[in-house]
């Protein structure tokens, strides 16, 4: 038997110690409750945020790019639905296996296969890999057929840029292609909007208006699990589409320009002489911008790049040519304006003139005999223009040329590749070549050779401003909602014009009236402009005119123009004696053929310029193209005016 006392004492000790432990337990429980309180009540917000950060992930959707419309609301750069194949690596169990299967099914090339594998190792596992950017319908159905075996592959419907008129708008619009690292670094908006596979403008208007076209990302919020797998979509915010931009160009005319220039290097520009709207502007050879959408293949690229006719250059804006005889109207106008000559001033052309030991030839060896302004312009007599240029001097000539838009960018900053050209004067030569001007240079400047360099669009603008009676216009290629035009329109409305009656004749008259009021006069005496216009008319519509064979007699289409043949290579004495045919000369040494024109003569509305690189003579190559084009331009006029009225009345 245990001693009773010992037993009691033992139990007492135990109870006492249990009590101490009990007290300690209470303290521990209270501290656990305190901890719970601090986590769940005091710091609840912090942990709630952290928990949301854990489970919510946002995916940016590709923005929808703004479209380009032509003047008649036809889509010229749109968004096409395309089928793509996406793979999100983290959602794939066996990435390698999937890729090998896809390689078989889609017959992916080895290079592309390696590229995809490379891409996978570079990016985060939840980022989409675009295995194919543009599945054919056949491939799409094939993938869907095998889909049970392709866990993780996702056929998706996406939008892609599309240029329905292929070659016709290449140089105006440019093209889009996948954003390069440089694009992302240089443009903050691209950087902020970037998603894999985003395409951005690389050249042309696509590049210039990138910021407005790009649009904003849609956002999809997903709940993800600890492994980053999407569990459910929580919400979806649609992005804003990029801005739609409307051009002043008429696709019908643009398409014909493209056809007329097929296979040759050159450019055509057409302009509304009152509004300054560019109705057509095509550079040739062109290429299909759709080739660039999904990465151009090397063969196609080399073909474009190595083409000696330089399809990558927008010749309308960046091509620099000596204007040749198309410069003569400006020389004549400058001489008239400065009182050097009048309409009766005459020169005797013997085929050449001698001056300071040099001989200056007229293109016609036997000479034109006695010529006045009109017949000199008509037959493009060089001697006459040598003579008046000599009297005028290059500095005064430059003043007139610059006024009419030569030597300046026509569209300002709209195209980053537009060139200024050059209208030289004595000061320019001194500053740039360090030499004094010599009189011989004035003579050849008088026939549009020498230092003078112009773009086809400048020649078009010059012609337009001569055609509208000598008023400054502001060329544009974008239809603006609230520019000068709509202000003009308001004042038009105030003049109580009943536009709704579709009185086209009146609209045209009034537009010219507005321009007279609004736009700066480029002349001192309107009679001088008239004289130049008449001389150009003679050149096309009178016997022995250089472009007489390209005339249209129907008054509705009748136009006035001036040919030009711009020398690429200095003509040597030997060449002159040989009198070679164009085709006998090596391509790169052949003359450029030029033509400027405006019409209809009785009531001018459009001006154009045509340049055919190394085409030969202006009268045999460039002017016939104008004849083919003019009929269409005038025929399109009525519908263009109706469209204009619709746009006006909408405002």
């Amino acid at each position, binding site marked *: 038997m245990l001693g009773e006392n010992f037993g009691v004492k033992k139990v007492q000790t*135990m109870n006492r110690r249990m009590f101490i432990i009990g007290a300690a337990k209470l303290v521990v429980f209270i501290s656990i409750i305190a901890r719970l309180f601090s*986590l*769940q009540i005091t710091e*609840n917000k912090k942990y709630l945020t952290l928990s949301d950060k854990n489970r919510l992930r946002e995916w940016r959707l590709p923005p929808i790019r703004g479209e380009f419309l032509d003047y008649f609301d036809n889509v010229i750069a749109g968004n096409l639905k395309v089928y793509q194949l996406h793979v999100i690596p983290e959602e794939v169990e066996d990435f390698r296996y999937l890729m090998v299967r896809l390689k078989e099914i889609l017959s992916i090339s080895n290079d592309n296969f390696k590229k995809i594998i490379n891409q996978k190792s570079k990016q985060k596992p939840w980022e989409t890999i675009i295995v194919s950017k543009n599945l054919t319908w056949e491939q799409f159905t094939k993938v869907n057929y095998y889909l049970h075996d392709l866990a993780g592959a996702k056929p998706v419907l996406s939008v892609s840029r599309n240029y329905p008129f292929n070659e016709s708008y290449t140089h105006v619009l440019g093209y889009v292609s996948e954003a390069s690292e440089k694009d992302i670094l240089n443009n903050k908006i691209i950087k902020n909007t970037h998603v894999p596979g985003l395409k951005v403008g690389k050249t042309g208007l696509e590049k210039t208006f990138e910021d407005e076209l790009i649009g904003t990302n849609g956002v999809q919020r997903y709940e993800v*699990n600890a492994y980053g797998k999407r*569990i459910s979509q929580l919400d979806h915010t649609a992005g804003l589409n990029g801005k739609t931009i409307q051009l002043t160009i008429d696709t019908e005319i643009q398409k014909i320009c493209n056809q007329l220039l097929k296979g040759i290097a050159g450019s055509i520009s057409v302009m509304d002489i009152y509004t300054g709207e560019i109705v057509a502007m095509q550079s040739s050879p062109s290429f299909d911008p759709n080739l660039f959408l999904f990465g151009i293949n090397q063969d196609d690229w080399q073909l474009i790049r190595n083409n000696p006719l330089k399809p990558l250059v927008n010749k309308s804006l960046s091509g620099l040519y000596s204007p040749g005889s198309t410069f003569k109207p400006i020389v004549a106008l400058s001489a008239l304006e400065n009182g050097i000559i009048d309409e009766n001033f005459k020169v005797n052309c013997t085929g050449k003139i001698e001056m300071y030991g040099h001989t200056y030839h007229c293109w016609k060896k036997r000479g034109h005999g006695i010529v006045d302004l009109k017949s000199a312009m008509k037959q493009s007599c060089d001697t006459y223009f040598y003579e008046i240029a000599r009297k005028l001097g290059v500095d005064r000539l430059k003043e007139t040329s610059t006024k009419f838009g030569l030597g300046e960018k026509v569209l300002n900053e709209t195209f980053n590749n537009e060139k200024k050209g050059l209208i030289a004067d004595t000061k320019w030569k001194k500053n740039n070549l360090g030499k004094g001007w010599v009189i011989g240079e004035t003579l050849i400047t008088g026939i549009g050779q020498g230092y003078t360099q112009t773009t086809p669009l400048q020649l078009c603008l010059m012609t337009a401003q001569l055609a509208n009676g000598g008023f400054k216009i502001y060329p544009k290629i974008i239809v603006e909602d609230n520019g000068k035009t709509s202000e003009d329109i308001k004042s038009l409305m105030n003049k109580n014009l009943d536009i709704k009656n579709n009185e086209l004749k009146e609209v045209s008259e009034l537009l010219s009236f507005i321009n007279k009021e609004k736009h700066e006069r480029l002349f001192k005496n309107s009679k001088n402009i008239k004289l130049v216009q008449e001389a150009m008319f003679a050149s096309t519509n009178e016997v022995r005119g250089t472009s007489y064979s390209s005339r249209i007699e129907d008054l509705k289409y009748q136009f006035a123009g001036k040919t030009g043949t711009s020398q690429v290579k200095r003509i040597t004495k030997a060449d002159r004696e040989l009198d070679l045919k164009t085709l006998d000369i090596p391509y790169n040494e052949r003359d450029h053929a030029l033509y400027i024109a405006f019409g209809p003569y009785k009531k001018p509305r459009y001006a154009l310029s045509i340049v055919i690189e190394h085409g030969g003579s202006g009268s045999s190559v460039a002017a016939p193209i104008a004849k083919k084009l003019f009929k269409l331009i005038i025929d399109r006029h009525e519908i263009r005016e109706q469209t204009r009225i619709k746009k006006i009345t909408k405002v």
Partner: protein
Amino acid sequence: MQYNSFNTQPTFYQKLRNFDYILLICILLLGLISALSMYSTDGGEILFHSKSHISKFLIFFIMMILMSFFNIKFWYYFAYLFYIVVLFFLVWASLYGIKASGSQRWINLYFINLQPSELMKIAIIVCLAKYYHRIQLNKVNTFQVMFVALVILILPIMLVITQPDLGTSILIALSGLVVIWLAGINIKYFVYSFIALLISLPFAIAFLQPYQKLRILTFLNPDRDPLGAGYQIIQSKIAVGSGGLTGKGFLKGTQSYLDFLPEKHTDFIFTLFAEEHGFLGSLVLLLIYIIIIYRVLKIGAISRSYFAKLFCYGYGSAIFFYVTVNMSMVLGLLPIVGSPLPIMSYGGSSMLATMIGFAIVMSARINYKQLIA
């Protein structure tokens, strides 16, 4: 005569009346809560974990009721045998055990995979309670008595720590030490051994497994490696903290539902519960545990036999350790050591051991008047 009357076996009716129904209800409540939590970890479906957990709870609960009818003497007589059998299982586990995730804790009994270290959490208390039952107070502090007690304690700890299973060995040590303390050992020995522990700590750390060292470093600074070792504790705190006052709602705990919570069935089940039911829910759960501990201690207080008293006090304290170590761990107050939350956590051996503990407590309640010679 009077003495003998105490020893008289209560009738079946008396036994039923003597049951601690509050304790029973609390255990059932815990079972219900754990079943719902398990259902939530299965993503709102009755899948493997919930099925297995619910059936284990029901089987072991019924077993507990049945075992409650054993006389407390039965446990007293078989205490050493129980301890030795479990110790044998531990040796068996270290020799032929099943290896899983880097440690060798389980033995295959053909009908169940048993984790003997969990049973040792009870066996150590039963064994020491019997050991001290016979020893007089003035002999408790003699070297011989202390030595045997230490051997009883240290043998299983060594076996468990080498499995390796730091969490369970700590819980065994705490359970054993609290019994030794209650038996009346001089406080100075605790002070001495505490000092000795501090001195030997650097050497002990050298013996720790790399992952255990990492856990301690991680506890000291969880942000050290937020995606690696610190991940568990950071995610656990986020889950608890984001629960707020009333929680995210049943089956709506995003942290667990989206797999951010590690080991949500077992050691981190409280995290899931706290996320879904918030501060108020956690308080309720804590209250249930406090009531259970209180009832167990109270049964100890009314028990007449020293063995029953010591066991109940020891087991009540052990439950306290299980609960507080687990909660402190998931709340970032202690380093992560594997320790399940009684009844709530998934795991058969832990459930079995807990229920055996309750069976002994209930047997002590039924036979509270029983003295053991």
